[in-house]
């Protein structure tokens, strides 16, 4: 049989020749190929997906400093397994080592899980009812016997906004005392008084994003490499992208920030108002001022009366660089160079923090930095702004904005102003005259009032004043003299040791609420975990106390969302207006900057600037609307030496600060193994020349003594310390350097001068 006659070998000529079998075979083949492909793909999809270690990512905010970095929290089976920087937040995904260790924060040991009452000298477990019953009884007794000003609230820049707002309302409109203050007084009070006196309103005009546009960075009294690392990283990124960018660091120590700066001016502690005034002198002397900006936007004042530019220039005559260089410790050449660069750069951004704020001349220093920007017109443009960095995650939003300070009321109002009191009484729907016209006790004076019995009962929340106040031993004793109640997240702190009642508080993502960081940005932290044991949010404790003290009808908002809604409604009656920042928006968006009056408003990056700020009059360009004449004020601020001038008896300057791995008094960060390992015990840093003269070597124990107290600790010699300057970080409770820190404060801001204490140093013989 030939192949031609075999139908199996016959090639199909037309479609009709194709057999049904061949069609099915072909279709089967195609189906098999498609099936195999789909199976492979499906298999790949499944296999690749299975590598995920996180079930769900939640948007939140870092617990630690005032940078307020956006974080993404990776959860699995109810545990935090990962934390990443949120690339969509203002920090563009950048955190520091503390933020990166946040998963461990949710597992720290030594959490306080039960209320405790001191019985026969010991703190013993009690029920919430017992503890809160005792607190309410003691508060009521004190109010009844000695009046409302015998009780006080001492809060924190780490409480949530809803908590600080509620405490402020309870004490000022319920109990009727203005004794509401907190640790922000120790941290940014001078920045606040500086802004208010210059612009009429608190909070920075600029934003972090200005760092992306600045050509000249003027960092003074800020070790941001360690204290606000994501911001310093942003500055460095700006410099990496534009190598012509210059960074100047003014700091008595050669800090990490100074190491990474182009110019370091190691001023003598307590003298830098001389530098700022000398820079202003050079600016006018060399004709570097922006006269048209001054003419349009600036008013001069000597603090009491209006002045003029000629008076300002006359005032500056005594601050010529050559006249101040000796006392300042920086050469006239360097002063002139920096002043020139500051004035002539396309965009200058100043950043400062505790080195400026924690000073007896803190307000003047803040005024003067703002002045340098105003007289050179280095403000209101991208990259050109004065910017005070803040230390805590919610000092700005929670405390400054809500007015939870002894002199303040919400939205930039002050208790001394009858109209402001009346406005708040109307908004809070309380009878006229409810809010006391008496300014309450600021932080230091509150503890002094506890010391001498004027304040008999105090509620301390989310802070550790036993370790953070200057002359710490004095104020630890003061707490003993008062019925002190402390809400805290961990067992045992310098404050708890002197407390009568201790209340266990929820930490970070164990409660929901809003925090406002350094650039007027409100961000929401969700509740993702259950607090351990009986721990509660501070808001729940405040609501409970209000109810027990008979103010339940005043404190009607009792959930974070309800309090926030009340507070944003209150804000709409002020120039802080953020009525448009709802929880719904905060859940979706990466924080919003106020002013933000409506729900369709994008928020305000640059304040006082037309197009950004909704309150600027159309056509005005820049308008400092916080003051009645819509002008910013330039003050004539004379330099006065710190009361802690060195002497024969106390020949060295002690200054204190933070280190990168630790936050505040270390109650949280020092419980994280890696962070504890990284820093070890705090030591005294001495310049090798000073050490040699004192016969001290690294590892020796030294006694550092001031008029206020003495501290013994280990010495370490380092070139980072300027000659004549000794430094210790304040995170370590074992060293507790604040025992030696001077008990002086700025008369305007009432902020203590942690940065300048005259001390003597001697080697301790073993």
């Amino acid at each position: 049989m030939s192949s031609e006659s075999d139908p199996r070998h016959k090639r199909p000529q037309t479609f009709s020749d194709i057999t049904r079998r061949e069609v099915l075979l072909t279709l089967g083949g195609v189906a098999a190929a498609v099936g195999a492909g789909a199976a492979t793909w499906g298999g790949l999809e499944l296999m690749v997906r299975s590598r995920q270690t996180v079930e769900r990512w939640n948007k939140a905010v870092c617990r630690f400093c005032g940078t307020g970095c956006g974080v993404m929290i990776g959860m699995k089976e109810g545990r935090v397994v990962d934390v990443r920087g949120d690339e969509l937040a203002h920090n563009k995904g950048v955190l520091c080592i503390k933020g990166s260790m946040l998963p461990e924060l949710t597992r720290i040991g030594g959490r306080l899980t039960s209320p405790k009452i001191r019985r026969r000298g010991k703190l013993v477990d009690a029920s919430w009812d017992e503890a809160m019953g005792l607190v309410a009884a003691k508060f009521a007794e004190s109010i009844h016997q000695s009046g409302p000003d015998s009780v006080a609230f001492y809060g924190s820049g780490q409480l949530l906004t809803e908590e600080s707002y509620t405490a402020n309302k309870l004490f000022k409109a319920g109990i009727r005392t203005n004794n509401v203050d907190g640790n922000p007084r120790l941290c940014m009070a001078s920045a606040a008084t500086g802004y208010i006196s210059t612009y009429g309103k608190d909070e920075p005009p600029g934003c972090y994003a200005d760092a992306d546009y600045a050509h000249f960075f003027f960092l003074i009294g800020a070790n941001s490499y360690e204290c606000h690392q994501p911001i310093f990283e942003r500055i460095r990124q700006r410099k990496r992208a534009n190598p012509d960018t210059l960074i100047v660091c003014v700091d008595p120590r050669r800090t990490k920030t100074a190491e990474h700066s182009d110019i370091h001016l190691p001023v003598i502690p307590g003298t830098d108002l001389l530098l700022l005034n000398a820079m202003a002198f050079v600016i006018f002397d060399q004709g570097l001022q922006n006269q048209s900006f001054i003419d349009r936007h600036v008013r001069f004042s000597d603090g009491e009366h209006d002045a003029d530019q000629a008076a300002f220039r006359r005032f500056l005559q005594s601050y010529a660089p050559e006249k101040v260089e000796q006392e300042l410790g920086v050469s006239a050449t360097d002063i002139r160079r920096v002043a020139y660069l500051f004035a002539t750069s396309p965009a200058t951004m100043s950043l400062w923090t505790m080195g400026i704020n924690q000073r007896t001349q803190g307000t003047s220093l803040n005024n003067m930095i703002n002045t340098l920007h105003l007289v050179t017109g280095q403000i209101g443009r991208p990259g050109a702004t004065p910017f005070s960095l803040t230390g805590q995650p919610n000092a700005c939003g929670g405390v400054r904005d809500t007015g939870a300070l002894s002199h303040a009321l919400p939205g930039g109002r002050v208790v001394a102003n009858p109209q402001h009191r009346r406005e708040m009484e109307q908004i809070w729907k309380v009878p006229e005259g409810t809010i006391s016209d008496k300014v309450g006790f600021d932080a230091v004076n509150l503890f002094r009032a506890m010391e001498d019995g004027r304040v008999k009962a105090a509620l301390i929340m989310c802070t550790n004043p036993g370790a953070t106040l200057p002359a710490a031993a004095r104020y630890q004793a003061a707490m003993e003299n008062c019925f002190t109640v402390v809400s805290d997240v961990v067992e045992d702190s310098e404050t708890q040791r002197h407390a009568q009642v201790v209340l266990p508080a929820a930490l970070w993502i164990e409660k929901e609420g809003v925090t406002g960081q350094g650039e007027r940005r409100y961000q929401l932290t969700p509740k993702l975990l259950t607090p351990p044991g009986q721990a509660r949010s501070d808001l729940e404790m405040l609501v409970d106390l209000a109810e027990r003290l008979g103010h339940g009808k005043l404190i009607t908002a009792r959930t974070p969302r309800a309090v926030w809604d009340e507070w944003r409604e209150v804000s709409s009656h002020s120039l802080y207006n953020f009525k448009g920042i709802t929880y719904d928006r905060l859940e979706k968006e990466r924080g919003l900057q106020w002013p933000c009056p409506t729900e369709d408003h994008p928020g305000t990056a640059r304040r006082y600037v037309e197009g950004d700020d909704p309150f600027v009059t159309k056509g005005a360009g820049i308008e400092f609307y916080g003051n009645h004449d819509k002008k910013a004020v330039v003050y004539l601020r004379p330099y006065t030496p710190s009361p802690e001038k060195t002497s024969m008896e106390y020949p060295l300057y002690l200054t204190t600060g933070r280190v990168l791995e630790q936050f505040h008094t270390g109650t949280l960060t020092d419980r994280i193994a890696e962070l504890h390992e990284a820093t070890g015990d705090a030591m005294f840093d001495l310049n090798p020349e000073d050490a040699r003269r004192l016969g001290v070597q690294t590892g020796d124990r030294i006694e550092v003594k001031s008029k206020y107290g003495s501290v013994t600790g280990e010495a370490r010699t380092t070139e980072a310390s300027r000659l004549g300057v000794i430094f210790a970080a304040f995170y370590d409770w074992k060293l507790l350097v604040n025992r030696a820190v001077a008990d002086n404060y700025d008369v305007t801001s009432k902020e203590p001068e942690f940065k300048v204490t005259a001390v003597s140093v001697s080697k301790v013989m073993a």
Partner: protein
Amino acid sequence: MNLELRQIVMLLGTLTCLLGVILSIRTARTRFDRIETSGQDVNMGITRLPALAFAKLVAFAALIALPAGAVFIANYHTFEGVHEVRGCASCHVMLPMVNDMRDPNSGTLAARHYKNRWIAEDQCYHCHSDYGLAGNLEAKMTGFRHLARYTSRTYHEPIEARVRFDNKNCLNCHAGTPRFEAVQSHKTAHERLVSNQMICLNCHGQAHPTSAQRTPGSNDYARLMEKMK
């Protein structure tokens, strides 16, 4: 003539395919049942093969050996080819990464490494070194999944990485250098970095444009999607 390995491989692959096609046609036209009857040996130069054996050998080469070779060469070419930046840029979803990397004004990690010549060539591959021929199987699977998604247009922008970036890619170059070792945080986080529990980006910022920038309709999208010159 100065041929690169890549070009030689490409030439070899093309020749293999051509030869495969020719031999396949030849095989298709071969009547195996007739060869037996004609039965002439074929001179192979070094040996003589019976005609049927030769035809079977040709069929083997055409249907099995050459296709397998072509697949191998194609894979080799793909894996080696994607070492090059332009290999990555040939998929348009990768354009934002490549455009941003070459933007001197960008501050992303990729752009800084590129601009400062920290990596001389094959910049993408240096930091994503698990996808080459010598890379791991997971990266291969991921790569094929990308290919399937891309060619079938079943992806959505902005694309998101599914697998965790391996810190080894960073540590390979940085660990042990004086600048790296001088940073205290690297010691603090050493274990976590090595075990990939903590990502390097937490402190060093974005590697590439954010997902918001890569979302169609965003302010940066058009600029990031510009065709490569």
